[in-house]
């Protein structure tokens, strides 16, 4: 216990210094406390409510929405909003939520948590709720493959059987995990079937290994399945969205209350299906916490996707859209390409998806290029695909393999040159897709296109 308090006080002192020098959100105090005792996360006092959000995609947006929901409810909330989803980040977050006597000073902690290390960290955070957004194919180097991550999360939630789970019923990988926890399911009804994807995350039934059938499919494996061989099937949603109205940014959500089936209108935060899932997960959490419908809707109505994830500006008739897209993450990239496929206006796409680290050592693993669905970009109204970065020759092959005509492909070594190849006079929109850790690079390319639009004018 002495080591614990020494660690707590030392890290509190370091936090004070960081605060003075204006670097408040740094993980180093968390690291320092861990050096005093590796039991720090377990021993640090927890507030009345701890919510952990994990999964492959959608963690950051969902965490931000959950924190805002709780703040709007009037709770004092601590959360690792600087993207510190690592052990030292969790410790730093909890350290900021206790005083020097290890007494909690907040009402709730909301933690964006790394899925790959969940089996070693969740137990010490003692969560009341665990939200699993989805489990999908991700970076080969980091996450190997989706079933490996599923097994890790399954182990993690089994270690905290009292934590309640908020699960996406339309994700067969996370929603069919075996665990004793109480579960709240959400889903979105549709009549869609996925158009194409190269790599099936849920190709076979986990019970009998026969090919699964989908009743509906939003994208990739996100949908409702039934096995024709053994009849194993998806869970139904406790909270089910339907009638998604993108034009008016509104969706309906139905659920069973003690007064029978209820239906409410929920305003969307973005026109993408993956953000509808994120929003619905937060609505489900709100209901699980006993928040009245009107209050949840009111709290969420003003929320938007963080600017660093997507932002748009129209200049002289051309919309310049900057969209964070996780390179190496097959599912995330494919979903963004699917979203572009659904656009009907004339557009061009700039891909700046090289990893930051790869710039220096050229170590990027290229296998993901051949699992990702570049096929979605093979559409008449997608006029050109412009790729920059030192894997440009690999992209060229991957795009050709996806059936994209060679004349629509521009691949250049220098990522910053991509802005010069956008035909700003012939399109309605340009999307700059940038790697998650390369926001400044994406912004620089986007700004260069905006400068061209301002100087040369837009659509003719």
């Amino acid at each position, binding site marked *: 216990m002495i080591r614990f308090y020494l660690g707590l006080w030392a890290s509190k002192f370091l936090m004070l210094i960081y605060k003075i020098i204006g670097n408040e959100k740094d993980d180093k105090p968390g690291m320092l406390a861990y050096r005093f005792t590796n039991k720090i996360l377990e021993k640090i006092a927890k507030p009345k409510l701890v919510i952990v959000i994990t999964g492959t995609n959608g963690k950051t947006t969902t965490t931000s929405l959950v924190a805002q929901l709780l703040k709007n409810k009037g709770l004092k909330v601590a959360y690792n909003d600087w993207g510190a989803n690592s052990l030292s980040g969790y410790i730093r977050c909890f350290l900021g939520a206790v005083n020097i006597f290890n007494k909690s000073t907040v009402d709730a902690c909301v933690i964006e948590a790394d899925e790959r290390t969940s089996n070693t960290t969740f137990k010490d955070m003692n969560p009341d709720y665990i939200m699993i957004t989805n489990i999908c194919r991700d970076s*080969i180097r980091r996450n190997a*493959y989706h079933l490996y991550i599923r097994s890790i999360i399954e182990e993690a939630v089994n270690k905290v059987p009292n934590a309640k789970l908020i699960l996406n019923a339309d994700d067969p990988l996370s929603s069919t995990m075996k665990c004793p926890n109480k579960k709240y399911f959400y889903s979105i009804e549709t009549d869609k079937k996925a158009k194409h994807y190269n790599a099936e995350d849920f190709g076979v039934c986990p019970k009998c*290994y*026969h090919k699964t059938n989908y009743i509906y499919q939003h994208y990739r494996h996100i949908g409702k399945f039934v096995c024709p061989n053994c009849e194993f099937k998806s869970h139904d949603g406790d909270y089910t969205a339907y009638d998604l109205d993108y034009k008016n940014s509104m969706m309906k959500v139905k659920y069973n209350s003690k007064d029978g089936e209820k239906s409410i209108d929920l305003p969307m935060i973005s026109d993408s299906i993956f953000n509808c899932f994120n929003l619905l997960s937060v609505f489900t959490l709100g209901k699980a916490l006993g928040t009245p419908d009107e209050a949840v809707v009111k709290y969420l109505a003003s929320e938007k996707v963080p600017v660093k994830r997507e932002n748009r500006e129209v200049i002289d008739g051309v919309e310049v859209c900057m969209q964070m897209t996780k390179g190496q993450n097959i599912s995330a990239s494919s979903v963004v390409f699917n979203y572009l496929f659904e656009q009907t206006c004339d557009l061009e796409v700039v891909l700046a998806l090289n990893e930051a680290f790869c710039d220096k050592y050229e170590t990027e693993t290229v*296998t993901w290029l051949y699992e990702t669905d570049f096929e979605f970009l093979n559409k008449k109204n997608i006029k050109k695909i412009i790729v920059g970065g030192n894997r440009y020759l690999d992209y060229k092959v991957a795009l050709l393999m996806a059936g994209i005509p060679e004349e629509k492909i521009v691949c250049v070594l220098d990522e910053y040159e991509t802005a010069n190849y956008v035909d700003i006079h012939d399109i309605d929109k340009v999307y700059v897709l940038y790697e998650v850790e390369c926001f400044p690079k994406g912004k620089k390319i986007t700004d260069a296109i905006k400068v061209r639009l301002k100087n040369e004018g837009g659509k003719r």
Partner: protein
Amino acid sequence: MTIEILYPLLTNIYGDLANVRYLKECLPKAKFIETNIEDKPYFVEHDVNLIYMGSMPNEYQEVIVNKLSKYKDVIKKKIEDNLLFLITGSALEIFGNFIEDNGKKIHTLGIFDNYFKRELFNRHNSLFIGDYNDIVMVGNKSQFTYMYGKNNHPFIKARYVCEGSNPDTKDEGICYKNFYGTYLLGPILILNPDFTKFLLKKMGAKDSLKYEKDLYNAYNRRVQMLERPEQRYILSDHG
């Protein structure tokens, strides 16, 4: 020409199936048989020109071993009869004697006298360059296991600090008669145009490649990159 892909719904990780997509582009007239877990493998009763099996999740290895073990003798005979096999990534583990995982022994087909040791929390990620005769082979590795036991028929000789089938050898994979098995994973036929031409010739096909110029552009740049003295080969989670 007939090519059989074994269990593509289960062996579909790391982009290995891009090899099949690419072969379909190079051989538009060939017949591709995709065998699912409920099917009897096509090669048991028919002649095929190539059998391909790619990387698979650990969770599916036992399922596939159970399915294939009854055809073990047929597979052995096909290999002895010079049938062409291309086996990539963790599919290679199926052909050894067993996989050792945390004290547990998973018995596999026993076609080759090797065994594999799995460490779930000690994964190996790397870039690779090596030589198969006069062909320079490049690619990626990402594996939970290493192969041990005497390897009388190594496939590729790893260069520089690149690892072979385990950290103590430069011998990578198994090449016996026309059986080519390697830990290299993903789209190895797209990344290695010289090897793909070699394979197509073995199959009796013309050795012209689809997107040949672009494949060679990417390949030549990769070889150049991997031959640099400052190149990093062993990769962490992030790079």
